[in-house]
């Protein structure tokens, strides 16, 4: 494994305790803000010192509390990129990138270092911007400069902290492709921190869902999205409808927040949480199983779809369910009361 992290850090009432491993792949730390994902990156980069534990990257021990090893950030070779890109504002693009080669100023000739700078600037299409200050660059150009500065410093791991959150949404998609290429070219471990599930799904191989300083679910991305295993992971991977449930004596499930009684062939506990994605709900006309009549509380129009807020007919104080469907479909089905299906395959049943 090219990266192994097992650390603990107490900070006031917050307790970070993470353990994970990754090979030469993209591992995403997915979590809400304040869950400790950025702190984890800072621990790996050596900016925050864990109270206890061990960090190994590429067979090099960066931190080991038992053996009293704590390498300085300067010699760790961890390419850390912040969401604001942290370009030095008083230096132009060329000087910013050149700073990334200073580590070798005693071991390499100036000409060699300059050649490296020039090469990476060429790769990132930054040659024409060499004399620009960071304040004169667009968000995308800033990101490219930051990546170039990191890659020229020869990192053995990339740590990307919310790399797209400072960008306008129309830029994100294009820059995601660029970053994906960079990560493929890099070929070593990348840890990507994000709270955006779509981004994480598109860019990573493996996902670790974090909540309150801990990793609650970790695994292959498809697996994590298909089976989030915990309520928190379910919310972060896009389950918008979540209710508490308890099992009834007859084997059926009562979703207490929704005010519905459902049937499922899945393995269930006495109680837990049940969830369904907004587009996991479907038209119930002519269907069998968990088909219910709902009142339409609200129609929310999105650019390419509708979100319909539903409440079981005859109930008033239950938590509404959101149903997302295409505009054409809703135009066909539109009515004050609708029959919908919560099919067993779409239901996610969680112990906690």
């Amino acid at each position, binding site marked *: 494994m090219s990266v192994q992290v097992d650390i603990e850090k107490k900070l006031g009432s917050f307790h970070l305790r993470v353990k994970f491993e990754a090979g030469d792949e993209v591992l995403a730390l997915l979590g809400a803000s304040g869950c400790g994902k950025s702190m984890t990156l800072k621990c790996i*980069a050596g900016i925050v010192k864990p109270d206890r534990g061990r960090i190994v990257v590429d067979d090099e021990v960066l931190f080991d509390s038992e053996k009293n090893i704590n390498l300085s950030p*300067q010699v760790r070779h961890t390419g850390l990129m912040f969401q604001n890109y*942290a370009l030095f504002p*008083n230096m132009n693009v060329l000087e910013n990138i050149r700073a*990334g080669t*200073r580590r070798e100023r005693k071991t390499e000739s100036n000409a060699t270092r300059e050649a490296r700078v020039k090469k990476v600037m060429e790769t990132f299409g930054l040659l024409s911007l060499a004399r620009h200050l960071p304040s004169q660059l667009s968000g995308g150009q800033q990101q490219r400069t*930051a990546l170039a500065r990191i890659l020229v410093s020869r990192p053995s791991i990339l740590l990307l902290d919310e790399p797209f959150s400072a960008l306008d949404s129309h830029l994100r998609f294009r820059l995601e492709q660029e970053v994906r290429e960079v990560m493929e070219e890099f070929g070593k471990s990348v840890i990507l921190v994000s709270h955006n599930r779509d981004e994480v799904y598109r860019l990573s191989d493996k996902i670790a869902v974090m909540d309150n300083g801990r990793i609650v679910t970790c695994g292959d991305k498809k697996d994590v999205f298909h089976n989030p295993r915990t309520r928190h992971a379910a919310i972060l991977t896009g389950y918008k409808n979540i209710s508490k449930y308890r099992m009834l004596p007859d084997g059926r499930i009562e979703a207490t927040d929704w005010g519905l009684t459902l049937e499922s062939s899945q393995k269930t506990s006495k109680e837990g949480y049940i969830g369904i994605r907004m587009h996991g709900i479907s038209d119930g006309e002519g269907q069998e199983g968990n088909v219910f009549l709902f009142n339409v509380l609200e129609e929310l129009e999105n650019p390419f779809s509708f979100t319909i807020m539903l409440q079981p007919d005859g109930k008033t104080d239950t938590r509404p369910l959101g149903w997302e469907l295409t505009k054409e479909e809703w135009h066909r089905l539109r009515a004050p009361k609708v029959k919908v299906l919560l099919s067993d395959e779409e239901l996610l049943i969680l112990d906690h």
Partner: protein
Amino acid sequence: MDLYPLWNSLRIAGISTVIIFFIGIFSAYYIAKAPRFVKGVLDVILTLPLVLPPTVVGYILLRLLGPRRPIGAWFLEYFDIRLTMTWWSSIFATTVVIFPLMYRTARGAFEAFDETLAYSGKSIGLSNTYIFWRIRMPYCRQGILAGTVLAFARALGEYGATSMISGYTPGHTATISTTVYQLWRTNNDALATKWVLINIAISSVVLLAVNMLERRTQENVAAKTMKEA
């Protein structure tokens, strides 16, 4: 008109500003990083000279540096140097009085520094010294410059502590402020007015410089906030 007081005031203010530039910046840098409690205590102690009456500062300095007092006596015995009543004795007074101005403005500037710049710098291998002089200082340049100019202006106007520790000897320890007092005492209004005008002119130029620096700092802060938003 003997211009000695002008020259003397300028060199005292100049030398104490250079000294306080370094001491102020380094204490600001380390205290900005200190834990909250330590910071609170040190802040009170280090800001005290700003609010204490200058005569109190002068009194304390005389108690320490006077020829029969602990530090003063030691210097007299081992180096045969009198620490009081020379032109450079005033430097003790001005450095103490202007220290809080430099320290507080520099600390404000350091606290506004975006720490992620330092973190990124470290992770690409830049030394702490390089980060301090090439990234942190340029970033905080305007705040620090404003503090320096303000400290210089205050040093130029120092009277209370200065007159106590250096006294007034024409052509020797006389500064603009002690000269004005002396001229007023001896009813020499014509000359006193000249010195007053000189003083007002210098102070106005200095304040103008501070204002220009502060405006640029605000513009920088505004630009930064806009970029982050």
